[in-house]
């Protein structure tokens, strides 16, 4: 097979940090090449070097594309030869149509006047190629995330792509959409398009990748050929530099104490569409010393359930009863929920979790400022002690507590959010996708914290879309689908198949019911 891309001895330094140190990467034409590594290993930096975001001259080393040395001075240069990168955060304009988005910056126009007929015809062709059955005139805003991802790919195809780079393309997709996307990549491979896939999801990688390059701490540590039968554990070993005997910390035998939180008949309506019930008559409980999982597909209503419980931060016309420690609790505002002993660790740390421009020191005590203040005056010494304590306890990798959280990696940001809620010292913690988008090492650390919390007598609820994770760390599981709880099982008896079966059965029941109505 011919080599389409070779990066040789790439070294990139930032003030004080060597982000990439003599990285080598070779991609064969027509393969799916996976690039893996922990957060902060240098994957994104390497791709920014390749795509010209960091222009030639700002790094050492050589890039060969099609056997020629290339000196990209910007994204335009790399796109001209067919290197297209799709970033994790999609770069679509929500209130423009699919067709307008696909040809944005590359308009089908004559003398500056857009040829709408050609635009739409070409867009329709591209949509067909990516298997998206939508009109080119549909607004991107009206599409789900999975479909938006396909629009991005169609946009890349419109530029005569030769090397497609996808940065965590499935991180916000549900399982079906992820599957579809991976199938599409395989299809492109058959058509001769080469892809580089950056992902944390090792099962996806072992499914589609031909070759894997593993980065660790800015260096290439391994190049694995998947035809040799690579296991996920092999990849993990290379990524973290040590073998993880187990991806999850050991669980003690479940020993639940008193019921800490009991929720009865909780129903929540959509804030904008008042007649739509997003959470339907949900009842559940969690005991001290217990880790309870809520499984389900994306859009099942799990985040909405959690946020509506936590101070009615989501939804309207909320009804139902919540008891903490057996007593009816007033959870009508976040402050009251916190005072009642509840904490909610958000799934979206950048939007809901952190004041990004502020330092670790200022973020950690935010949910319980009074504890570091005397009569409203912040005691800076105590504040520093608290921040140092949690930085130490959760192993937050940072230059000091005065580092701004915006400059931390995803895993370390997540640890700051977790610190904030640990400091608030709740009895019941709801963790919403606590390990989304973070690397294997940090995941393990967060799992360990979760188990420690349970051991210390806290009640923990974990919402996650990754079933292995739920099976690995919880004691008991609820399954949620379309706003309802459709199953409950002890984790020791649960399996991915059983969870999926509960979800699918509930869907069948519903369609059966609606058929009856029709009849």
């Amino acid at each position, binding site marked *: 097979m011919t080599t389409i891309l070779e990066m040789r001895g790439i070294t990139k330094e930032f003030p004080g940090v060597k982000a990439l140190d003599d990285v080598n990467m070779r991609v064969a034409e027509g393969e799916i090449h996976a690039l893996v590594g922990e957060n902060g290993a240098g994957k994104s930096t390497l791709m920014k070097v390749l795509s010209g975001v960091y222009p030639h001259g700002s790094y050492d080393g050589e890039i060969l594309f099609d056997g020629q040395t290339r000196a990209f001075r910007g994204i335009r240069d790399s796109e001209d030869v067919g290197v297209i990168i799709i970033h994790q955060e999609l770069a679509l304009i929500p209130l423009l149509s699919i067709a307008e988005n696909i040809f944005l910056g590359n308009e089908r126009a004559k003398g500056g006047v857009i040829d709408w007929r050609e635009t739409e015809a070409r867009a329709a062709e591209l949509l067909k190629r990516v298997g998206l059955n939508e009109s080119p005139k549909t607004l991107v805003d009206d599409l789900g995330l999975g479909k938006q991802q396909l629009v991005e790919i169609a946009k890349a195809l419109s530029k005569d792509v030769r090397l497609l780079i996808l940065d965590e393309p499935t991180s916000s997709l549900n399982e079906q959409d992820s599957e579809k996307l991976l199938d599409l990549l395989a299809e492109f491979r058959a058509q001769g398009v080469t892809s580089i896939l950056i992902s944390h999801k090792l099962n996806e990688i072992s499914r589609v990748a031909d070759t894997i390059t593993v980065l660790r701490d800015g260096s290439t540590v391994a190049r694995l050929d998947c035809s040799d039968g690579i296991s996920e554990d092999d990849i993990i070993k290379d990524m973290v530099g040590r073998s993880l005997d187990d991806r999850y910390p050991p669980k003690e035998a479940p020993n639940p104490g008193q019921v800490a939180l009991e929720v009865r008949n909780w129903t929540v309506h959509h804030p904008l569409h008042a007649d739509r019930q997003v959470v339907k008559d949900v009842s559940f409980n969690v005991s001290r010393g217990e880790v309870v999982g809520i499984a389900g597909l994306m859009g099942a209503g799990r985040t909405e359930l959690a946020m509506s419980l936590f101070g009615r931060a989501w939804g309207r016309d909320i009804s139902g009863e919540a008891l903490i420690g057996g007593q009816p609790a007033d959870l009508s505002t*976040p402050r009251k929920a916190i*005072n009642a002993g509840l904490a909610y660790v958000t799934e979206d740390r950048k*939007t809901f979790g952190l004041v990004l421009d502020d330092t670790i020191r*200022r973020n950690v005590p*935010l949910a319980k400022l009074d504890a570091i203040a005397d009569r409203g*005056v*912040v005691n800076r010494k105590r504040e*520093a002690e608290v921040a140092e304590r949690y930085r130490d306890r959760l192993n937050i990798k940072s230059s000091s507590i005065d580092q701004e959280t915006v400059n931390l990696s995803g895993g370390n940001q997540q640890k700051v959010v977790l610190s904030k809620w640990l400091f608030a010292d709740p009895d019941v913690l709801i963790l919403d996708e606590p390990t989304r988008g973070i690397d294997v090492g940090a995941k393990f650390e967060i799992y360990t914290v979760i188990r420690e919390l349970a051991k210390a007598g806290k009640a923990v609820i974990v919402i996650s879309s990754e079933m292995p994770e739920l099976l690995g760390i919880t004691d008991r599981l609820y399954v949620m689908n379309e706003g309802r709880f459709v199953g409950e099982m002890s984790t020791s008896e649960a399996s991915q198949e059983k969870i999926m079966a509960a979800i699918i059965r509930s869907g069948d029941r519903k369609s059966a019911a609606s058929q009856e109505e029709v009849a």
Partner: protein
Amino acid sequence: MSEITNTGLDAPAGQQARASWRFLQTHLREYGILFALIAIMAFFQVATGGILLRPVNVTNLILQNSYIIIMAIGMLLVIVAGHIDLSVGSVLGFTGALAAVMIVNWDVPYLLAGILCLAAGALIGAAQGFWVAYFRIPSFIVTLAGMLVFKGLTLWLLAGQSVGPFPAQFQLISSGFINDVFAMEGFNLLSFLIGLAVAGGLAFMAIRGRQREAKTGTPAEPFAFFAAKTALIFFGISWMSWLMADFRGLPNVFIVMALLIAIYSFLTSRTTIGRRIYAIGGNEKAAMLSGINSKRLVFLTFANMGMLAALAGLVFAARLNTATPKAGATFELDVIAAVFIGGASMAGGVGTVVGAVIGAFIMGVMNNGMSILGIGIDYQQVIKGLVLLAAVIFDVMNKKKG
């Protein structure tokens, strides 16, 4: 022995220089604005042939800018919380008119009238804050409406006429000076002593703070910077108070301003309320989910802004000794400019009270200096506009680099 001292001093010298340089790079903004003020003052001092820093002119400078500074303090809180208040100029005019009507036309005792005006200002701010905080109407629009409403109400209240003069007692707010208990001829010793005490107190607090920092960890600020900054502030304030003492002493309004600066600096940097306001401006959703009552705090920042605008209105009316329908027009722009020159961010969550005050002084010194030089109002506007633009461009570039 000599070896030990050598390794103790020489080895880190290179490191120290590098650390200082890095510190300067990251904190360029904070020092930059202070340097800018000093540079601008030095320039006008030379250009005006020494008139700028004559005792009488320094006193004038303070009196001329007092109401802008008072409002800039309130505006800083509003902008840090992520909002804006365009109505402050009109509210200033309105409360000045209200004071005039009450005191001059209705013979209300001036103290009572002053309190009522402050209450009216707080109420006006609260009314605007109510829509912004609880109904999420953009503050730009609410206060733009407020600007028109109170401009109109000022006209209505004064029936289009100027109302004045005020009783002499009332005028003292802005034209009075503190009494000198020492009764020296031509020199207000008490004023100078107060100035010295304030300068000494600030230096003492800075040194104590640094010692405490040194105890818990290494202070971020290189020693040379710390020493230079503290000395500069100490001598700057001492010298200013000397100058003013040499004229008629510290103006009453200067005391009011100094108190407000001290209180609000403390509030923003040291209290939980301050922390919460910065958190709201930095990320309102995260702040809300951390149990912070952002609605109430936004409401209160607007009420506070209204009250400070009313205070500025009293000061301004007392200074002119009359309330005019035109009072306060376009002041909001000077106030907002001062806050942004002082380093606050349009997006919220960033800015300091001291920065805003320095920003106001930069504008004030330029106004005053250019007027002394006889530069026409046309050029003055152009130059001030460009300075505002330059300050913000500098901010943005600085942030990008960092």
